[in-house]
């Protein structure tokens, strides 16, 4: 069973108009740069994108946004992006904002076969609109539902031929859960090693969650706010 594909162009085969995609990363940290570029070049449109953020104007998810490939965004924080603002205010882009922890948990639930769960976040706010409210231990909670995607795109530091993944530092973020929640999960990695080279006790994402894997190239790894001492 070969999971290895040559590059991002081959990896995105099957992605089509109107599909729901998950895209890992927090800000520009740990985003699947190669896959995002291939999606931008593909011209595929009407996409529903689940991603914590929306990239910046000329990089990451921002490029798909600029080229009007997105129909809807499910995210928690979408600042840092002027084109996003314009499309959102003009109504071109549908946006569903989630508390960040709720978003993370909804994705984990999608991967773990849990259709719904209760959390306290958002009770009494506009996030609660239309949601079932229930009290547990004297505290009000909202019923939140699972998220899954047709394709999930994740980025890891190391991957092996079996699809096992290891992330680096805070570049893990949403990638690990998203890998489990895609019907088809595509992993791009900085280093692709033969099966058996990664320590089985150190795997963050077991290969069962990954259907396609490739070695990415030309990582820019842009920094949004370089802050030094």
């Amino acid at each position, binding site marked *: 069973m070969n999971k290895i594909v040559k590059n991002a162009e081959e990896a995105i085969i099957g992605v089509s108009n109107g599909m729901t995609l998950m895209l890992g990363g927090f800000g520009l*940290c740990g985003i699947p740069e190669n896959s995002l570029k291939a999606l931008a070049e593909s011209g595929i449109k009407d996409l529903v994108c689940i991603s914590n953020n929306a990239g910046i104007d000329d990089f990451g998810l921002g490029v798909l946004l600029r080229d009007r490939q997105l129909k809807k965004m499910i995210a928690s924080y*979408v600042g840092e992006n002027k084109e996003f603002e314009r499309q959102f205010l003009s109504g071109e882009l549908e946006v569903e904002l989630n508390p960040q*922890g709720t978003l993370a948990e909804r994705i984990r639930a999608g991967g773990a076969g849990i259709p719904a769960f209760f959390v306290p*976040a958002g009770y009494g706010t506009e996030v609660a609109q239309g949601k079932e409210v229930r009290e547990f231990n004297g505290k009000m909670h909202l019923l939140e539902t699972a998220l899954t995607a047709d394709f999930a795109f994740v980025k890891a530091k190391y991957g092996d031929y079996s699809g096992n993944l290891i992330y680096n530092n805070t570049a893990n973020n949403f990638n690990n*859960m998203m890998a489990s929640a895609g019907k088809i999960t595509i992993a791009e990695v900085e280093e692709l090693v033969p099966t058996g080279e990664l320590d089985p006790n150190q795997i963050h994402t077991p290969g069962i969650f990954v259907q396609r894997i490739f070695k990415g190239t030309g990582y820019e790894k842009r920094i949004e706010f370089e802050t030094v001492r």
Partner: protein
Amino acid sequence: MALDKNGIAQRIAQELKDGYYVNLGIGIPTLVANYIPDGMEVTLQSENGLLGIGPFPEKGKADPDLINAGKQTVTATSGASFFDSALSFAMIRGGHIDLTVLGAFEVSEKGDIASWKIPGKLVKGMGGAMDLVASAKNIIVATTHTNRKGESKLLRKCTLPLTGVACVKRIVTDLAVLDIVEEGFKLIERAPGVTVEEIKNATEGFLFIDGDIPEMNI
């Protein structure tokens, strides 16, 4: 005299205890890290997946794979750990964080907080703020007592969209330290040289004053 941002941060740092795990929001809260007393072990959590935020990196040493929740490059302390966002918010939602410090547009006398959205202005999103306020064991708001127009941010009721309800425990402003109690905002301390009268005038919500109010010790 009213405190500056650093003064507010310095006062909040007095709330820290040895062994605390703390989440500091963007803005004034971030400055609290500069005032952790020597020899006190306080571990800072960043909701993007880091327990043990260290100082900003040295020039030229920034690692794009190592940022905080404000997307700034940081370092990790000795003893730090990295994890995914689900586990990060498991820490937060599960009540494992001892103290959360965050900014606010408005706080009500019931402890409601508005901090993420101003109608008519750009919506950036709530990020992790709703999760943090809904679950932290102890929440301190760091804010100026009034906004740029001189209007009180400590209100009877919040006018802006809420981030969470009945969750704030303490507020540290440039003028005072106040606790949320049944009666409303209970005045705990005054900034050095600031009178009770000045605080009263700057507080729209009910200010509960019980006995003599000491000055902050900073």
